[in-house]
C-alpha cells in the first residue's frame, strides 16, 4: 500500500480522538433526533463513552494515569444518570403508557 495511506492508517492519538469525535457526534445526533426518551438516554451514554475513550487514549499517550482515574468518575456519573433517567422514564411511562420525549413539554413552566 502507498506510504501516505500507511501513515494515515498508522494508529496514533489522533485516531482515537477522531473515533471518539465520531461516536460523540453520533450520540448528539441521537439526542437530537430520537423521540424515545430511553433511546435519548442511551445516546447520552454513548457520548459519555466517547469521552471515556478520549480519556484513556490521552492517559496512554501522555503516560499519565489520571485519565484512567477520570474514566471511573465518568462511569459512576453515567450509572447514576442512567438510574435516575430510567426512573423518570418509568414514571412517565406509568403516566402516559409511552416514553415519548414530547411528553416532557408538559413540564414547561
Amino acid at each position, binding site marked *: 500500500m502507498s506510504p501516505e495511506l500507511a501513515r494515515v492508517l498508522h494508529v496514533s492519538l489522533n485516531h482515537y480522538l477522531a473515533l471518539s*469525535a465520531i461516536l460523540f457526534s453520533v*450520540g448528539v445526533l441521537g439526542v437530537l433526533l430520537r423521540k424515545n426518551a430511553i433511546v435519548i438516554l442511551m445516546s447520552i451514554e454513548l457520548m459519555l463513552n466517547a469521552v471515556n475513550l478520549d480519556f484513556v487514549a490521552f492517559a496512554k499517550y501522555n*503516560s499519565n494515569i489520571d485519565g484512567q482515574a477520570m474514566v471511573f468518575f465518568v462511569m459512576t456519573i453515567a450509572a*447514576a444518570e*442512567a438510574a435516575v433517567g430510567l426512573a423518570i422514564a418509568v414514571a412517565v411511562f406509568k403516566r402516559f403508557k409511552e416514553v415519548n420525549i414530547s411528553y416532557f413539554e408538559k413540564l414547561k413552566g
Partner: protein
Amino acid sequence: MTVEDLLFHSFAVMAVLSALFVVFNRNPVYSALFLALCMSVLGAMFFTLNAYFVAVAQITVYAGAVMVLFVMVVMLFDLKREAEEILKFSPVTLAKVLAAALLCGFLVGTGWLGVTAVKGNLALHLAPSATAADLEKPIDGKIPRMEEKKETSPDEAREPLAKVSGNPDEDLTAAEEARLVENATVPESRVGGGLEEFGSTVTLSRVLFSKFVFAFEAVSALLLVAIVGAVALARSKGGTHHVS
C-alpha cells in the same frame, strides 16, 4: 500496518457501526443491544490501550449493569418498533443533522490539529507511532505539525524541553521525575511500547486513593443519592409492583 493498527481499525468500524445502529434503529431493544455491543468493543479497545482494569470496569459497569438495566426496562415496557420515521424530512431535522455533522467535522479537525498544538507535550514524541517506517518517508504538508512530530527521532524529541532550559538530558530527567511523582507512572512508560507496568491496577488505585480521594468519596455519595432518588421516583403509591 501492524497488528495493533488492524485491531484498532476493526474495533473502530464496529464501534461506529453499532453506534449508528443505536441511533437509527427504530426498535429500542435493538438500540440497547447495539449500545451494549459498542461499549464492549470500546472495552476491548481499552485493553489495547493498556487500561486493563478500566476496560474490565467498562464492561462490568456499562455492558454488565447499566445496559442490562436499559434492556430490562425496555423489555418491561414492551416498546414495539416505533411508528414514525427517525429521519422524516423537515427543516428542523435538516438543521439537526447538519449541526451534528458540523460538530463531527470540527471535533475531528480540532482533534488532528489540536493535539499537535499542545505545547511541550512530551506524549507526541513518545507516541509509538514514530517508527522507522514513517521516518524514511518524505512529507507532504497535509498536517504540518503532525509531520514534524513524526520526523523527530527520540533525541530530537527532547528539543522542546531542551529549549525551555539548558542541558536536555538533565532537564528531561527532571521533568521525568516531576511527571512520575505526580502521575505515579513508572519510567518504562516513557518508551513507546513498554507500558507493561503502566495502567496496572496498582498505579491506578494509588492515584485514585491519593490524588482523587475526595472526588472518589464525593462520587460515591452521589451514587447513593442517585439510588435513593431513583427508587423514590420509580415506585408508585401502592408498592413497587402495583402499576397505577
